[in-house]
């Protein structure tokens, strides 16, 4: 049972860009703007020019329903768009088209791994809205002499996923975000690697106090850091005898701190009213057909992997935590021993990729199959296999080429015998230690044999031979 000593309550509002659509939510501008100059993918609509009118992208609505269903939400009978009236330079119309009453989906949940086992995090609602533009400040927002605006992002379809304050620690918040992102990628509506794809506003309170809303969090790691900072800040306020006030704070990603945004704009009164330029949607009838098309989601796939391939739950979890990884694994597991594949992909390949900040796209499944094949036929050692994987990632090439170039074919018999004799001769201290009962000394002798054979000896065989000679 998790005690939650500080009484932390966190609710997250996650803004997800439906960036796999071809066009923005209300106009025909492309969503593919990430490498292009500012204000080069805008039109009268997303620039908010006088007289322009929005028209709803049908695919965006379908994607939103898909997500709603995957988050176990109810899809509403009647949904419509509202204007949220507030002013910020990234908002070209002086209001944002969003949803208010009648959001497209509500009352769902996701399961995450909590501090003390499975945790059900309730989803209040997941509603559609348009993304504002992007602001560039010279230096920091509080010091910059002017504000630059790029509206390429303006009008991207967003889904705002609002959770109940069910999260009890920054770690749980990060896991929630990982899970959400994972589900979105499975649904093929979202590419989390694009800049600005996922932004988070976090509401956090401690010990039943007022909550602060932290804005401008742009990654799951950022969320964890912002929340950790915020807990410490709020505890310090309380410890000094103060009271945490309800306010909006801005996360400064570079400094990893949150800043108060208390300016005159704080007096929010959004004056929501139905967007007169868009007509209501009656789309609950679409849900059953869309549900049919939902792909297998991470939890279901994890259970299937355990059952179908006989791998451990930990491996299944790691493999399904990323859609591409899960697909990679299944492609390998179809043609090789699934358990060996799970071990090599989870325990070796994934670590090597993470270390290099690479994704699974950097490794071909054929190469994984070759490595497993070479191991199965006892042509290479495990050390050799690791070497192959590292070399492919660092320099490229195929496993076969690397085996040839580095001479990684496993050595046996006389070569290992000779290496063992040399190792014993050259390491009298280790031999003495071993004979005196220090079993660990044998490891350094095995290491010496491996070094002499350039890793091509089988470590277990080398150990046997050494034991025979020393025994």
């Amino acid at each position, binding site marked *: 049972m998790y005690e939650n000593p500080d009484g932390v309550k966190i609710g997250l509002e996650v803004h997800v860009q439906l960036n796999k*659509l*071809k*066009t923005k939510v209300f*106009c*025909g*501008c*492309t969503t593919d703007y990430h490498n292009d*100059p*500012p*204000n*080069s*993918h*805008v*039109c*009268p*609509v997303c*620039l908010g020019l006088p007289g*322009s009118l929005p*028209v*709803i*992208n*049908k*695919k*965006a*609505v379908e994607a939103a329903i898909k997500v709603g269903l995957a988050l176990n939400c109810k899809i509403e009978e009647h949904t419509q768009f509202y204007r949220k009236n507030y*002013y910020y*330079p990234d908002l070209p119309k002086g209001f944002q088209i969003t949803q208010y009453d009648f959001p497209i989906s509500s009352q769902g949940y996701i399961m995450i791994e909590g501090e003390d086992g499975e945790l059900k995090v309730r989803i209040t609602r997941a509603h559609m809205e348009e993304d504002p533009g992007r*602001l*560039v*400040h010279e230096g920091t*927002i*509080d010091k*910059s*002499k*002017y*504000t*630059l*605006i*790029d*509206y390429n992002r303006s009008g991207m379809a967003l889904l705002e996923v609002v959770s109940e304050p069910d999260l009890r620690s920054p770690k749980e918040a990060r896991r929630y975000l990982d899970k959400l992102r994972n589900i979105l990628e499975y649904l093929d509506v979202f590419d989390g690697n694009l800049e600005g794809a996922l932004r988070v506003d976090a509401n956090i309170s401690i010990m039943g106090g007022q909550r602060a809303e932290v804005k401008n969090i742009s990654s799951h790691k950022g969320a964890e850091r912002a929340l950790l900072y915020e807990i410490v800040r709020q505890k310090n306020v309380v410890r000094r005898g103060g009271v945490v006030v309800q306010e909006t704070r801005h996360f400064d990603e570079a400094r990893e701190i949150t800043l108060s945004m208390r*300016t*005159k704009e704080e*007096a929010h*009164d959004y*004056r929501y009213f*139905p967007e*007169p330029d*868009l*007509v*209501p*949607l*009656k*789309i609950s009838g679409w849900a059953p057909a869309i549900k049919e098309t939902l792909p297998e989601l991470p939890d279901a796939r994890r259970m299937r992997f355990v059952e179908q391939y006989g791998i451990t739950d930990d491996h299944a979890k790691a493999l399904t935590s990323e859609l591409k990884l899960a697909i990679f694994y299944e492609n390998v597991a179809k043609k090789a021993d699934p358990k060996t594949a799970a071990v090599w992909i989870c325990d070796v390949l994934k670590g090597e990729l993470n270390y290099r900040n690479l994704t699974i796209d950097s490794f071909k499944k054929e190469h994984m199959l070759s490595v497993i094949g070479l191991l199965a036929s006892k042509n290479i050692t495990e050390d050799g296999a690791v070497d192959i994987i590292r070399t492919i990632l660092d320099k490229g090439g195929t496993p076969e080429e690397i085996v040839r170039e580095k001479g990684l074919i496993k050595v046996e018999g006389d070569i290992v015998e000779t290496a063992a004799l040399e190792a014993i001769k050259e390491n009298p201290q280790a031999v003495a230690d071993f004979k005196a009962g220090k079993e660990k000394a044998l490891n350094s002798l095995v290491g010496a044999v491996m070094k002499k054979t350039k890793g091509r000896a089988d470590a277990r065989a080398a150990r046997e031979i050494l034991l025979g000679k020393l025994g």
Partner: protein
Amino acid sequence: MITKKDLEHIAWLSRLELSEEDREKYTPKLNSVLDYFGELDKVDTEGVEPTYHVLALSNVFRDDEINSPTKSLSQEEALSNAPKKHDGFFKAPRMM
């Protein structure tokens, strides 16, 4: 009744800077209109649905196709009316 103080708040909510003189001038005129709006209190609207859209349209969409139905502008066109710009960006004042 709107007081001059209320007016100050609403004007800020509307992002309209009003001078003391403006507030003095506007308050009675606004109140006479609001009085008139108060006429609606006499109408029994119990159980009456509001009319947001006068035609009963629903489910109007566009397809997810580039440049349809609105075409993108060039960067030059997009910025052509900007009072201030910088390196392809619109240039706005500082935030704080």
